[in-house]
């Protein structure tokens, strides 16, 4: 399956946007960990913004970063939102509320608890009625999300946003799901090449094999500490405008061979 990547959005400690991260991903500047600020989604109406959780803010942050220099018709874009665990802080709050005698779950907490909360807010913010889906494949979430979005893009012939993100669970969930840093990434996929295209991807399933590590040594630990950060080796190739082949390993899915060809 062949698709084109037209734009990228990124947010992780020390990699606060795609543009800011480029020198680090290219190996030109040393990586320095720095916590992300709380993000204010630009496209959300004030009322919805007030209710947006940290997870929804992360999804908006990477989608809005991707759109920053790309005047695409967002209402036409399909979307795939992929998160391994969804909104851990909200799940924690609801489960704590259910331990109290009154069991008072707030309506806002409840509608924020659905796995497709970011997709819902995104559709409200952008006015897009194009199809969107929300998925998880646990630690395979990046590879599975890429395949889901590429299939949607190729079969429906629609520009497709893929957003992959996970945030740190609070304790006591953190000890059962040890994701140690926040990471979000977004790609704008297109079925056809254009002047905006950054790279062509060819995706092929393969037998189980080890995943390709990050080229920047300091980012390899990050790659393994959040399912969305499995995207780092691909981000490095795109940032370096480098042709290459990488493997996305998985537990429940076939390994995916990703062949990256920079666009002129």
């Amino acid at each position, binding site marked *: *399956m062949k698709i084109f990547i037209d734009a990228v959005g990124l947010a992780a400690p020390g990699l606060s946007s795609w543009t800011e991260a480029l020198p680090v991903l290219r190996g030109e500047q040393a990586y320095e960990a720095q916590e992300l600020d709380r993000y204010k989604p630009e496209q959300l109406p004030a009322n*919805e913004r007030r*209710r947006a959780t940290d997870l929804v803010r992360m999804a908006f942050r990477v989608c809005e970063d991707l759109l920053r220099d790309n005047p695409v018709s967002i209402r036409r874009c399909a979307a795939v939102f992929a998160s*391994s*665990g*969804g909104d851990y802080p909200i*799940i924690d709050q*609801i*489960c*704590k509320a*259910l*331990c109290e005698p009154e*069991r*008072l*779950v*707030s*309506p806002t*907490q*409840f*509608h924020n*608890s*659905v*796995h*497709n*909360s970011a*997709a*819902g*807010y995104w*559709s*409200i913010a952008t006015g*897009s*009625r*194009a*199809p*969107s*889906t*929300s*998925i*998880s*494949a*646990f630690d*395979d*979430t990046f590879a599975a999300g890429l*395949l*889901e979005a*590429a*299939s949607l893009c*190729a*079969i*429906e*012939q*629609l520009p497709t946003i893929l957003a992959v993100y996970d945030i740190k669970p609070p304790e*006591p*969930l953190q*000890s*059962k*799901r040890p994701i140690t840093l926040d990471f979000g990434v977004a790609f704008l996929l297109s079925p056809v090449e254009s002047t905006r295209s950054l790279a062509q991807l060819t995706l092929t*399933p393969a037998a189980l094999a080890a995943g390709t590590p990050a080229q920047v040594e300091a980012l390899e630990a990050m790659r393994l500490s959040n399912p969305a950060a499995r995207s780092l080796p691909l981000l490095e190739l795109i940032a370096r405008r480098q042709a290459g082949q990488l493997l996305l390993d998985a537990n*429940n*899915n076939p390994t995916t061979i990703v062949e990256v060809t920079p666009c002129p």
Partner: protein
Amino acid sequence: MISGSMTPLAITDYTLTTCLGAGRAANWDKIERGETGLKPCDFFDISDLSTWIGEVAGVDQQALPASLAAYNCRNNRLAWLALQQDGFLDNAVRAIESYGADRVGVFIGTSTSGIHQTELAYLAARNQLPDWYHYRSTHNVFSVADFVQQALGARGPCIAISTACSSSAKVFASAYRAMATGLCDAAIVGGVDSLCLTTLYGFHSLQLVSPDKCKPFDRERSGISIGEAGGFALLEKTEDARLMLLGYGESGDAYHMSSPHPEGEGALQAMQTALAKAGLASDSIDYINLHGTGTMANDAAESKAVAQLFGERTWASSTKGWTGHTLGAAGIVEAAFGLLSITHNLVPASLHLQQPDPDMHIALPRAAVQQPVRKVLSNSFGFGGSNCSLVLGERV
């Protein structure tokens, strides 16, 4: 907006387990008799919610295969119970052997997966969760897809789709695309959602839970009854099957997180796209299985959209009066009812409908209708404005 047509996919086997019973025959028997599976809420230790639920019998007596013991939670026990009905497990395993494990994908819809296990863990020790609690294999959204894949021995693409109440309708669209792009040659699709405190108290907080058995489309409807269910279907590229997936349509409402678009614009777009994918005009549809949750807002919006496309020409009913709203499993359960309707040439009644809302200009049957049923449209609409319609039936 999605355009273009699709190549129909054969549905070579399917099964469902709801509060009506385990398997197709037990479910259809209750549909024919007009007997609901709903009962006053007695789930877990709940004593302060005055509502009705659709609980599947025997879930807690299910023993998972020993190698999958870590997956033990209510949701996966329900998945295991549902997999074993109608010979589905054996047929799926046979298909996996014939195609090769890595050529068969697994696409499972769920809204809350095994969240009840986390609720139990917090109730037991909310500061440091107990050793018996395994987040990954029970609560995580993907756990049920992981469980089904391992229980069947498939090794192809595997995802959980979680778009609230449209989850297990959208699995058909994802599986179709994965098969069309060559990621797999066959797919097991399904949906499993089980009762839990989060949804019972959560929908209660939104004032969407009915104190009575749900009465979709009635002028005195007062909300949903929450149910649980599991169901699965086997999709193949075979051309000679009678039951096929002919079309799918997905859309967003772009309106509100927990209320549908009041004019049903997103719903209309999903239905139009599904018909376009199938290459069918609306008058080819013999029966519409409505989302029909029983809330004021959902039924009003859905009836407007259906009236625009079908008027009062096509029988349209909600089967949630029988099963309750099975949330992430509603898509597969109602697809299965659509397929059963074709097999039995029977349009189910809209159960508990006494006085149809006079503002609804659609053909709601108060009693079952025996007539030829060749093509069915099934609607599933979820929180966040996530809509999916399916067209099922004989090849065009």
